[in-house]
């Protein structure tokens, strides 16, 4: 970024002094100019300009044809993309310090608790939320993690770091289910085997089906919060986010989806490359595990080429930072995408997965995921190829608020 409006310079100074108070005043109107602008709605623009007004995108075009109104601040960068969407994380629930009081991504008291809302667990001011924002990530699909059969709900939230009410985009995005080893219990507790995991899930969905029918017949039927959410799954309003890695677990997820006529999104999917025809035929989305995920346990056969292989097979996918129990406490989806690109995923496909495709998966493509007039002014500014190790994020814009990143 070579020039910057004085307003933004002042904001940058304030932020430098108090990084825990990321509340820049929104400028009503400003422009973002990039030597390359990936709009994700058509070919990338050379010397492109995005006009931002009142938190929305007011105009997008080539500098040659789009006049920047005189006097408004201009942010400049080598590369501009839509704000990145992390298509699955636990950030905000799995906090920086990794001590019991900041780990809310899984509740171990019972194997199935679909009633747990991400809204009630998300800590917007956890440092890691700001860490991701500083790297160009403007929205995160986050929520309950993989440590139980049904661990709870997920949501889509912006990375401002204000309050969850201010920042939430979609309060109920998916219901997190784990058919992976992490979702099984030890010591004689259920589910202790993969077959038991599936049996319990099927029983619960069956219960929800009966519950929904009963509620429809009799409005006085007492509310069951958990079954209520699963009824939304059965009605097709909300997908199950099913974490599974081994090929046979992935097929179990598809089998349950078919039996109940529900939408599933496959999460992790380390061995998806073994069952690509089945996944493709089922028409489901996949969230491949982070490219740098450790290849132990049921990820032993994981490959850094997974995203490339899914793309080659025309399976729809988006990219994620996932969950880490230790360090790095949050992965950075941009950097995971970089390693996927280094392992054969075309850069354009990776950018789609981080923006418009993630928005489609989360059914917010009318609002997020590309630089188009009327959409949220979410942008990421880089001083070079976003996927290169040595490139910096030089600014992030969320809902028209500019967060300088100190060249992070």
């Amino acid at each position, binding site marked *: 970024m070579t020039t910057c409006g004085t307003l933004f310079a002042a904001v940058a100074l304030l932020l430098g002094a108090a990084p825990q108070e990321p509340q820049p005043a929104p400028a009503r109107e400003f422009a973002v100019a990039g030597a390359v602008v990936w709009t994700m709605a058509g070919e990338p623009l050379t010397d492109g300009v995005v006009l931002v007004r009142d938190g929305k995108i007011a105009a997008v075009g080539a500098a040659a044809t789009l006049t920047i109104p005189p006097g408004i601040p201009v942010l400049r960068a080598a590369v501009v993309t839509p704000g990145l969407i992390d298509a699955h994380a636990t950030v905000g629930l799995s906090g920086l310090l990794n001590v019991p009081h900041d780990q809310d991504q899984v509740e171990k008291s019972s194997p199935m608790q679909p009633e747990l809302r991400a809204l009630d667990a998300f800590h917007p001011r956890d440092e890691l939320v700001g860490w991701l924002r500083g790297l160009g990530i403007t929205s995160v699909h986050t929520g309950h993690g993989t440590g139980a059969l049904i661990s709870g709900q997920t949501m889509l939230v912006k990375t401002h770091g204000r309050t969850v009410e201010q920042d939430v985009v979609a309060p109920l995005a998916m219901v997190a289910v784990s058919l992976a080893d992490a979702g099984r219990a030890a010591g004689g507790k259920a589910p202790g085997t993969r077959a038991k995991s599936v049996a319990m899930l099927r029983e619960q969905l069956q219960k929800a089906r009966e519950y929904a029918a009963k509620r429809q017949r009799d409005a006085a039927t007492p509310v069951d919060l958990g079954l209520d959410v699963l009824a939304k799954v059965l009605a097709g309003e909300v997908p199950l986010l099913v974490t599974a890695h081994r090929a046979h677990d992935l097929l179990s997820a598809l089998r349950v989806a078919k039996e109940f006529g529900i939408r599933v999104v496959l999460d992790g999917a380390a061995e998806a490359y073994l069952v690509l025809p089945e996944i493709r035929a089922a028409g489901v989305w996949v969230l491949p595990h982070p490219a740098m995920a450790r290849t132990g346990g049921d990820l032993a*056969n994981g490959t850094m080429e997974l995203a490339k292989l899914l793309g080659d097979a025309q399976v729809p996918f988006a990219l994620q930072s996932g969950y880490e129990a230790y*360090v790095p406490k949050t992965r950075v989806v941009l950097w995971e995408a*970089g390693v996927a690109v*280094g*392992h054969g995923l075309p850069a354009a496909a990776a950018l789609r997965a981080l923006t418009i495709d993630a928005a489609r998966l989360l059914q917010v493509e009318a609002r997020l995921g590309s630089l188009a007039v009327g959409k949220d002014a979410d942008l990421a500014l880089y001083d070079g190829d976003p996927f290169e190790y*040595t490139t*910096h994020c030089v600014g992030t814009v969320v809902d028209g608020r500019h967060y300088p990143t100190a060249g992070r």
Partner: protein
Amino acid sequence: MVHFGRWTLAAAWMAIAAHAIAQERPHAFVGARLLPIDGAPIENGTLIVQGGRITAVGPLQAVVVPPEAVVVDAKGQTIMPGLVCSHSHIGAVAGADGSGPIQPEVRALDSIDPRDPGIQKAQAGGITTVNVMPGSGHLLSGQTVYLKLRDGRTVDELAIRNADGSVAGGLKMANGTNPQRDPPFAGTRGKAAALVRAQFHRARDYQQKVAAAAGEPSKLPERNLGLEVLVEVLEGKRVVHHHTHRQDDILTVLRLQQEFGFRCVLHHVSEGWLVAEQIAAAKVPCSVIVIDSPGGKLEAAHLSLSTGDVLDRAGVLVGFHTDDGITDSRLFLRSPALAVRAGMARDRALQAVTIANARMLDLQDRIGTLTVGKDADFVVLSGDPLSVYTQVLQTWVEGQKVFDRADPQDRLMAVGGYGASRDQAMSMCCFGTQGGQ
């Protein structure tokens, strides 16, 4: 394994034969961009290796390729020294057990599985020398072992030897929260330091008794394997590799190091950027970990990607490490790249994964640069070492190719996939002709 006897003998003979053939003819890599590390990059250079050593390095016009040489066209490729990782847990390494906090007699050597796929993955990442360490759950978890990642069937074939024939390695120590446990472990930092100091005093007493005996067997103290190792440390023959994160814990290590005069490398040093001047003044090197985000444990809450740069500018000898499985050996070059991103000079960052780490292992005369006379350990890259788009194409150790991305089995180890994390098959691992199961 009696029934394997004949096979093993044949294999050993074949391995020797293959080695001898490779040693007979020089190999000349011609036209590559050479990054010698001890000097400026050489565009369009030639590297010649023979007999396991580097015999020539220089610009194309300045190096004469012997007529009998095997000439390898390396145009468009980049060749740099084999990477040195100063802190790793590959080889399914284990050290001390839960019976006590201080166990210097335990050797990593006695736990290494040379068929652990982690070793092949490290080769795929361009790593040729590695300090394999026990974990950090003890104040002193045992002796580390320095390995050359040759295609070996036994740990003895991988182990680096000192001039006297002993196995090269250091001593792993740790402070901060990782070794804090119920008694007999320390529950607090003060107790941890006291236990370590008491142990070093015992070692000093032992050392003095041995010296006083002047070789007279009747006067020697009862032999103590653990104290023997600590005497090596006190005499500067064995380096302490010390896990430490928080700035106060770092200073505690320096305090103990000064009290007992041992040679030491600080490892991880998440808050090293806060005490860079003190570390520089103590002239203690740092082996730094590069992690994608702060946190994950209390002591790493202030972890910074700038640590390497800050320490380097303060005059500290800086290396990076994988801490594999914390970061992946196949992506080791990502660590210096992220350090450059955070401000570190490129040449310093590349030194930090080669010669700087070699110095921390006392191996700077044998490895770490492309220098005539040094071991022929090198990596052939498809491009710039600090680019996400660059692939490790080949890894060579002592003139032997140990990784070749063109080989499907090697490629599997490099990128992952079905079977990539299984133990390496017994057959064919040692001849550079992988593929058998």
